[in-house]
């Protein structure tokens, strides 16, 4: 039951206890800390406790969705453990193809720059910068580097490409271009999850995720600062 693909704590707890009840256990108690799950299952008079380590995984909402639908299926036909196990085996990551994601991210960051009022040259430079950044990020992630290093390096590359806009005054709105092209690194999901967890009474999970998100932001800004320092960009 490694539900740690960026699901919300409350969702994890509810799902585990509902699934357990559907499979015929008396009750399920669960305790969460940012890096592990402790799960106690009570069946009749005997109880079983397991601890599972949760690994750092990229956020994948389609897996979360599939687990939710398995849980609902289990409630509809209770005590059918074979069916559930077969379904869990079948969970697969629904990855979008690379050639689709890279231009999509480029386009979204470019749309950001347009919304913030960049000119058309700035629009295309942002597109280029964030598309290159996304390619770098996927490449590094597939080589299993630490997430922190991936973020810092991607921010560095993004800022380098985006500072093309300063070259010969290619674009008049260079600082918007620079700020929009690194927006693909905003850790929105960890921040929102942290807030949601903390508000619902999972303080330690909330803090853990908040710290993780803050670290990611810090590494991103480190990458940007490195690039800016290297180029000696000044003037705002």
């Amino acid at each position, binding site marked *: 039951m490694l539900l740690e693909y960026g699901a919300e704590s409350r969702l994890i707890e*509810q799902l585990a206890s509902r699934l357990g009840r559907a499979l015929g256990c008396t009750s399920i108690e669960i305790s969460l800390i940012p890096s592990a799950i402790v799960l106690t299952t009570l069946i009749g008079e005997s109880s079983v406790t397991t601890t599972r380590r949760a690994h750092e995984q*990229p956020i994948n909402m389609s897996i979360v969705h599939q687990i939710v*639908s398995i849980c609902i299926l289990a409630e509809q036909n209770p005590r059918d453990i074979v069916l559930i196990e077969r379904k869990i085996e079948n969970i697969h*990551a*629904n990855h979008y193809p690379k050639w*689709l994601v890279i231009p999509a991210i480029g386009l979204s960051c470019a749309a950001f720059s347009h*919304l913030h009022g960049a000119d058309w040259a700035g629009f295309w430079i942002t597109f280029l910068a964030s598309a290159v950044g996304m390619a770098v990020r996927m490449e590094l992630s597939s080589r299993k580097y630490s997430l922190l290093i991936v973020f810092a390096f991607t921010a560095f590359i993004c800022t380098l490409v985006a500072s093309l806009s300063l070259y010969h005054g290619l674009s008049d709105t260079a600082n918007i271009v620079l700020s929009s092209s690194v927006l693909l690194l905003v850790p929105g*999901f960890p921040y929102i999850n942290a*807030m949601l967890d903390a508000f619902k009474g999972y303080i330690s999970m909330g803090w853990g995720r908040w710290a993780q998100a803050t670290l990611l*932001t810090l590494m991103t800004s480190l990458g940007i600062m490195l690039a800016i320092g290297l180029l000696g960009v000044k003037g705002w």
Partner: protein
Amino acid sequence: MVIIELLLGALWAAIPAVGFGMIFNVPRAALPFCALGGALTYGVREVLLYQHLSIELSTFIAATTIGIIGVFWSRRYVMPRPVYTVPSIIPMIPGKYAYEMMISLVSMNTDGVTNALLSSFIENGLHAVSILFAIAFGLVLPSMYYTKRQQPII
């Protein structure tokens, strides 16, 4: 004229919502809803800003709107709510403020502290933090209502 501008802006805001939905590996069926949600939140926020409300308050109201809509969508299509809500609020993330805050921090380091830099640092930082908080609180509000009832949403 203003309405056309608003619609165009909302259309532009729908693109990032879809793009970030792809990073988060949202199931394919949910992508159109992410686009709709992104456009909707941006539109609501722009309308409220046009009424001279502060940016924090209008962000909060927009986030609450998508939070409530997310509850209905998630019931109907059996999906966890963050699938819809988080990509939809991405267009409102205060990236620009956070960036300017950081830039002023860096230039304070290199050029020495001046009053203008310090005030720009504090101003942008406060904006960024308060907008982030407004987004998060707006999203939490609907589900806090439902935790009062013991029944799970989906």
